[in-house]
């Protein structure tokens, strides 16, 4: 039973620590720009928490989640500005539609493995990018389109500070839901399919069902954040569906530590904030950034958080 308790404390302890960090961080924010960067980090963190369910726990790669993000953004943008749908309803409708699209795509795609799966998801991203770029009567084409601010029950989110608190609460919600899933029969079935697929099947786990499910869940996470991003930014272009965006998201998950929910959060924070801090180095920014990435993967191959936890356990005399 001690393990049940320690699991519980790891769960609630992690959540409490994250909540405390999110609550106290604004004390160090000198101006609105800090809030702006922090909101960007929170957005990425929410997507990565979802994506980590698919990549870290399910063992499936996706290089197309930038496209689901963009679909959420455009769904909200089109529904609110062209049809006057309330923003929360538009966000929900976009999420449902993106979830359905992901579901339809997932069956054939997730049959593939390794490089082939990466290629197929890459293809999805590219197709969606091209559609967003060419269907100008809906999306405004390469020039992009304007989006109204988010309003919830008559309240309009105007300042970066308001956005910060909304995103912080949503990140905590995303972390809570993911922790629930991972520690449930659904999460175990998912992890089992990753650990030993045939071993899972012979005890009745329909492994492809769980892969599809997590593909859909992670796509919905990305879509909701896309909707939020569109409202916050007030303007979107097809570039948000670009290949770079998808790669960036995967990199955040891998850097933070696969199959670690808090790791995904840390990866997202670092990869969002670090480039901002490195701007002081001007021309060397990209080089230093690349060196940090390489160093991390060489010396902490399991990703930041899992490697650090292992290190601390070793230091404490291997009691576990």
């Amino acid at each position, binding site marked *: 039973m001690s*393990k*049940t308790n320690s699991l519980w404390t790891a769960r609630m302890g992690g959540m409490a620590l994250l909540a405390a960090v999110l609550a106290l961080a604004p004390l160090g924010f000198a101006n609105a720009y800090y809030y702006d960067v922090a909101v960007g980090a929170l957005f990425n963190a929410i997507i990565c928490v979802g994506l980590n369910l698919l990549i870290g726990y399910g063992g499936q790669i996706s290089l197309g989640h930038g496209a689901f993000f963009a679909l959420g953004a455009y769904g909200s943008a089109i529904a609110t500005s062209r049809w006057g749908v309330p923003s929360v309803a538009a966000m929900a409708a976009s999420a449902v539609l993106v979830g359905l699209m992901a579901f339809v795509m997932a069956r054939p795609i997730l049959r593939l493995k390794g490089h082939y799966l990466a290629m197929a998801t890459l293809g999805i991203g590219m197709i969606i990018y091209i559609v967003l770029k060419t269907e100008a009567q809906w999306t405004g084409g390469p020039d992009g389109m304007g989006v109204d601010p988010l309003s919830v029950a008559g309240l309009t989110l105007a300042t970066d500070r308001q956005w910060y608190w909304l995103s912080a609460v949503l990140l905590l919600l995303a972390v809570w*839901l993911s922790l*629930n*899933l991972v520690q*449930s*029969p*659904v*999460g*175990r*079935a998912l*992890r*089992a399919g*990753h*650990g*030993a697929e*045939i*071993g*899972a*099947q*012979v*005890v*009745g*786990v*329909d*492994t492809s069902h769980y892969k599809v*499910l997590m593909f859909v869940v992670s796509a919905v996470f990305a879509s909701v954040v896309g909707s939020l991003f569109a409202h916050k930014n007030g303007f979107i272009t097809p570039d948000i569906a670009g290949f770079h965006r998808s790669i960036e998201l995967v990199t955040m998950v891998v850097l933070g530590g696969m*199959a670690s929910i808090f790791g995904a959060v840390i990866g997202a924070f670092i990869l969002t904030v670090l480039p901002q801090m490195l701007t002081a180095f001007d021309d060397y920014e990209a080089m230093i950034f690349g060196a940090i990435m390489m160093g991390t993967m060489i010396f902490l191959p399991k990703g930041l958080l899992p490697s650090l936890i292992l290190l601390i356990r070793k230091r404490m005399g291997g009691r576990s």
Partner: protein
Amino acid sequence: MSLLAVDGLSKEFGGVHAVQDLSFTVEAGTIHSIIGPNGAGKTTLFNLITGIYTPSAGRIVLDGTDIAGKSPSQLARLGMSRTFQNLQIFFNMSAVENVMVGAHLHVDRRFWPSLLRLPSMVRGDRACRDECLRLLDFVGLGHYAEAEAAAMPYGGLKRLEIARALAAKPKLLLLDEPAAGLNATESREIDAVIKKVAGQGVTVVLVEHDMKMVMGISDHILALDYGRKLAEGTPAQVRANADVIAAYLGAHA
């Protein structure tokens, strides 16, 4: 009626007949062993019965249902479970979690209750965990319950697979070389576990090279060679069979 009936079963791999026109039955509540020299087709037969391979010809009937061509997860629903010669352990989980996956079909695994961690789901999961801890005790791994599977010794992993298979509450349990790679002491421990399992009414089909184990615990033995049936009967009958002796010793009797 027999629990498992195999009739005219064949499997070809590009012209190689791994299993050829094989027929036999397994009676409920017995321990049934399949023996044969390396390459005799034992593991292929296992993979056919458990749905990993699709037969080229023939029927496999489990408890009245024709199961040829069904997927492993469908077979699990019909009451079949197995272990693997080369382990299929979830190394990304703890020992007890491995066993809990075995109980997959018997827990509330709906998406929304899991996502929202509803109290009913939590209660069910806790009960499942307690039962899986008992199963770990049953196979003698109680002290490893919270250990990561990746940190367990080989002999323990073999028993962990048995515990996981039992968590699925099978009618028919297939064990693929449970003693392979184990020393004599560990093998006798596995003997005891298999006997206990059979004592609880689970029908066991066993592929094994360890003759001491096979002769000691089997009710019935099927000997294969080159994918065909060589002999069948009680341990005493098979032990005395001239063809079996020839196949094992390489002599031409």
